[in-house]
């Protein structure tokens, strides 16, 4: 009995902080999304008006679309690449530990700090990459211009993510027992067949979790984009959660925009629902796929 009181005392700091700074803000937003409130004056109840506005907000839906492109591009490049690296580094090759460390290195640094470095590397006038391209005789590319900014942002995201997913795949691969492979090699299975018919199916459940993690993280990411392009040029790299951020904290460089708390809460709720629905759809589809095995 006494022990239970101690348990409450020990969990109290955690519960208290989670409720006040984790749960309360969500209810705060659930309330303000029905109000017209710009951060000053008296909030005015306007019912579903904010949501009607979300429906009409072409800028928001453009940012949702951009988020899909960003997420799709990032995953298409990151997942196969990290899986390939994991499969190779799961074998006993020379320098395996060193290579793993090198591939994982980008993930330990701050995304915003590295974005500053990438800003210098991809700068269109005198960036490191363009200097190199010019010297090779290819001519320069406007990496952060309207046409290529999204590609650049995706490439940077891939750079920061591959090592992380490689490690997760490796953890999954190490759980596949060796005798499965031994049996296969006795049957004369070649490496490609081994990857497709043994490794992939046995990695199924782990893969399902990793892809889900990758999808949700990508949908929510905006830090690096905020530092690198601020969503520009012309909103080409504006993703959902960056658009949301700007509604609450207008950027220094963007003097035209104003804080809009009521509307921002409605956009936040809508964005959370979009992420939730996509996660759910993915979960249903991937479950069906893994059931067919």
């Amino acid at each position, binding site marked *: 009995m006494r022990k239970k009181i101690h348990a409450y005392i020990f969990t109290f700091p955690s519960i208290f902080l989670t409720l006040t700074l984790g749960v309360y803000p969500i209810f705060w937003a659930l309330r303000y999304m029905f109000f017209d409130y710009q951060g000053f004056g008296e909030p005015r109840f306007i019912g579903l008006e904010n949501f009607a506005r979300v429906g009409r907000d072409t800028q928001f839906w453009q940012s949702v679309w951009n988020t899909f492109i960003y997420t799709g591009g990032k995953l298409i490049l990151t997942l196969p690449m990290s899986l390939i690296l994991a499969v*190779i580094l799961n074998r006993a090759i020379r320098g395996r530990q060193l290579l793993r460390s090198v591939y*994982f290195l980008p993930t330990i640094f701050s995304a915003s700090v590295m974005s*500053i*470095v990438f*800003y*210098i590397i991809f700068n269109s006038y005198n960036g*490191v990459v363009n200097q190199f391209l010019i010297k090779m005789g290819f001519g320069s590319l406007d990496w952060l211009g309207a046409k290529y900014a999204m590609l650049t942002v995706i490439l940077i995201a891939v750079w920061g993510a591959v090592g992380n997913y490689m490690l997760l795949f490796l953890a999954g691969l190490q759980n596949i027992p060796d005798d499965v492979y031994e049996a296969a090699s006795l049957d004369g299975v070649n490496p490609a067949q081994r990857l497709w018919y043994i490794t992939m199916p046995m990695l199924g459940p782990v893969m399902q979790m990793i892809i889900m993690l990758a999808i949700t993280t990508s949908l929510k990411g905006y830090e690096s984009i905020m530092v690198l392009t601020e969503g520009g040029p012309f909103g080409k790299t504006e993703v959902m959660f960056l658009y949301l951020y700007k509604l609450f904290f207008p950027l220094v460089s963007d003097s035209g925009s104003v804080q809009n708390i009521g509307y921002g809460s409605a956009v936040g709720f809508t964005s959370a629902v979009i992420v939730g629905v996509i996660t759910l759809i993915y979960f249903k589809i991937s479950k069906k796929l893994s059931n067919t095995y």
Partner: protein
Amino acid sequence: MNVSRLISRTVLWAFLLLTAALMLFPIIIAVFGSFKTNLEVTTGATLLPSSWQFQNYAHAWTQANFAQFTWNSVFTSVFVTIGTLLITAMAAYAVDRVDFRGKRFYIVLQSMTLFISIGAVVLKPQFDLMVALGLQTSLWGVIIILISAHATAFFMMIGFFKGIPRDLDEAALIDGCNFYSIFWRIILPLLKPALGVTALFTFRGAWNEYILPLVFSMSRPDLQTLPVGLANLRYGFGAASENQYLLAGACISILPMLIVYILANRSFMQVNVGAVKG
């Protein structure tokens, strides 16, 4: 060794080494660039600086205020790490060893905070709460909010508890220990590896955090941490487009992580895998 095998080996190693080069490229650019002059960063043809400009660091440290940013980053990260370790170790101990009412609720609550995200919306009420408490004028507001997001650390911690046998608790109980002294004298010392890995994870998160300290330092420039101060330099404090200082600043921020990584890279990698399993 036949020919096709030789070719496949070559392709494999070319792929591995090219990938490694791409991964290291931005870091190498940052490190060597930080010792160049601005002119050499923007037009130089060589990777290595023609003459090493060590004063870039002195300039960044004093003129561009990186001494202040570094101190703020160290202060924030250290206290976030200590606070998170204490709170999650205590909570994990109670949840793993005691059957109390609301235990399931607690676990559901923690996992929900991992899955539900409404992005930057929460920053506003969090900031307002800190203003109400008068904590927005110091880094304590940032520290408390970062500690409050401890669900991942909690799940990492509780994963390690499975490895500490309950017999130890019972033996200690018979020897006259109570709930608290078992925690301090038996559990915490045995929990060292868990504390190390969780500390690494938490410290990295706090050290690299950008958005939260950005919001808090909007009206208080003296609260800028390294990522915030560096990103704000883009707008220029008379240092506009002085790339060598930006790179020196980036290196100041990268260096501590790099050193820890070189010393403890296995634990670092354990962090990420553990975080997902939890």
